């Protein structure tokens, strides 16, 4: 029994899943109705589905953020703003420049979505160039888009909120006709599968970890480390674009000021919660995704407990600090010393 327990504890996914279960347990005591899933109007309905649905954006961002953190030991803090930029770009193309509220669209939806994704990819590429070629600290390089992307989004929308009251545009963020599962969940599953295929079927995952662990050694081994770093930032930008389009479709509008607000923090938090070191190197994608849903579960729980959305960042901040402190080498060393001291004391007593 003890052996299985210690084996289980060594699993990389142990801590993330434990945290998710803990959060869900709070709900079990507070309100068992949290777990009920019903079918209403032909679609699935319930708080759990809500967590999976609302957590989609964070999960998608976490996929990109994991790679960025692994490869460069830095974070891409522009993802939230880039989400807003992608949403604004996509909606601008669909509605036509200068229109604020349209019932029909001027371009096919696919074009709008692709434009949104391209905006994300473009921002990611610029970030990647600055980090990989110009050797600027990742946080500082992405700081530029952190400020500029929302402002550019506002320019694209002529400083207004574009509403696209066109039924098919809502499919991406809500429900496809005759499909009971919310579309964002399906999109997230698709993106995760693609990411896994790309990482596992090619040597990209190994290269990323190698560059993250030691950039110079990898270069000497013949890996184009600048290129790997660039690719990771580009993927992160693309993920931000996809998340932005989903967020925009959810509210069938492009609100550049509010889409993706604080999401950079959530994505970083998801990676940290997933048991990944923020110092780069080895990564565990599944952990990040579990982390993303944990965050959404926490937010839904807080909302269910009656904490306002403005106040919930306090809990998030405390959580982040707890996680990074527990992860920090200083704390680990201190715990280790304590354990050794205890063992010695135990021996003496015996």
């Amino acid at each position: 029994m003890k052996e299985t327990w210690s084996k289980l504890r060594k699993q990389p996914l142990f801590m993330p899943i434990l945290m998710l279960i803990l959060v869900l347990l709070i709900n079990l005591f507070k309100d068992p109705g949290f777990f009920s899933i019903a079918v209403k109007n032909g679609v699935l309905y319930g708080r759990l589905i809500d967590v999976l649905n609302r957590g989609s954006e964070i999960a998608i961002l976490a996929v990109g953020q994991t790679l960025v953190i692994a490869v460069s030991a830095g974070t891409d803090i522009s993802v939230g703003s880039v989400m807003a930029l992608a949403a604004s770009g996509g909606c601008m193309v669909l509605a036509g420049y200068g229109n604020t509220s349209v019932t029909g669209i001027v371009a096919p939806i696919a074009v709008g979505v692709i434009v949104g994704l391209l905006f994300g990819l473009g921002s990611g590429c610029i970030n990647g160039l600055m980090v990989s070629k110009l050797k600027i600290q990742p946080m500082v390089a992405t700081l530029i888009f952190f400020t500029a992307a929302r402002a550019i989004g506002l320019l694209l929308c002529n400083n207004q909120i574009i509403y696209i009251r066109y039924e098919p545009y809502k499919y991406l963020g809500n429900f496809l006709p005759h499909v009971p599962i919310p579309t964002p969940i399906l999109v997230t599953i698709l993106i995760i599968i693609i990411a896994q295929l790309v990482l596992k079927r090619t040597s990209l995952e190994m290269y990323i970890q190698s560059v993250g662990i030691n950039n110079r050694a990898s270069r000497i081994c013949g890996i184009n480390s600048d290129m790997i770093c660039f690719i990771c930032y580009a993927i992160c930008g693309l993920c931000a674009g996809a998340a932005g389009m989903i967020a925009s479709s959810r509210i069938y509008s492009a609100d550049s000021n509010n889409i993706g607000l604080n999401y950079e923090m959530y994505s970083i938090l998801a990676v940290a919660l997933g048991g990944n070191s923020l110092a780069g190197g080895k990564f565990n994608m599944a952990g990040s995704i579990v982390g993303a849903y944990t965050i959404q579960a926490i937010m839904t729980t807080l909302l269910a407990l009656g904490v306002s959305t403005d106040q919930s960042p306090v809990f998030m901040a405390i959580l982040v600090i707890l996680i990074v402190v527990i992860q920090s080498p200083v704390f680990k060393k201190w715990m280790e010393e304590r354990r050794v001291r205890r063992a010695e004391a135990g021996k003496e007593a015996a």
Partner: protein
Amino acid sequence: MANNRQTAVRSKKRVSGNNLLLLITIVLFIVMYAAGCIVYSAKGFTHFQTFLNILITNAGLICVACGMTCVMLTGGIDISVGSLIAMDCMILADGMTNKHWGAIQLVIFVMIVGVVWGSAQGFLVAYMNIQPFIVTMAGMFFGRGMTAVINTEQVSITQDVNKLFYGWANAKIKLPEFLGYMGKKHRIAPFIRPSVILALLVVVLIFFILRYTKFGRVLYAVGGNETSAAMMGLNVRKTKLCAYILSSVLCSFGGILYCLNTMTGSVQQAKGFEMDAIAAAVIGGTLLTGGVGNVIGTLFGVLITGTINSLVMTNGKLLSSWANIMTAALLCIFILLQAIFAYIKKRRES
């Protein structure tokens, strides 16, 4: 760069490169202001009062950017300043309006909050070895959330609420009349607020601390090379802790000046302020890698961002988001310049 006095001969190249950045900043400010004077002379941009208004609006930012410079000198970053300012303003506004506390007690309380805030962040960064960005990002969320916990509504400080604070905010210091412009009948003397004088005093104080005190010299040494600073017997951790405390205290002071200018407290206040402060410091020639920087440059950085805002406002037709984009573009250019200088220096050394 006075600590290079002993090694002035050897580090001449580096000093000239850094002075060049400062020079570019000052020239840029003069060119930008002159261009503004020529283009918008009809709209009163040439008046001396316009320049003073830039100082009045940015008095808080000047203090915050000085603190940010100190932190950046150690190679760290503090992105919690915007939230801390929002929290300070809310404490002041809510304390006066709803709790009827005195202005002086509240100002002292806010300064104490600054010390505690800085100590907590500094401890986590210096003694727990956690990345400054993550710590201060948690601080950013915590501050914004706490602001909402204190009060979710917008609170204004009016004359009835606190006469003393209102008096501070509206005190005018008249300058000699010949500096003013012709009104309808007689020359209108330009004026400044006491907050400007306080902010400029802070700049002078920090300038002297950085240049002539032991603490200031150690800050440069720690930022230049942490390992060699530690080998020289300097207390790296304590210095870092002090830098964060200094930053938060200056930020709290800046928050009071900011509140004197806006006279409100709200959750959405001072969003993106950290970005302005970082941009000002970077444009002023502070290296993000630490060890190089000067508050005089930072002062000019603030003036440049202030001038951009003022230009966009004077134009009247441009969207306000243009100011953000311009600042981000300038930030981008200066980061690139820094990267180029670093590259040249590296090539010369090898």
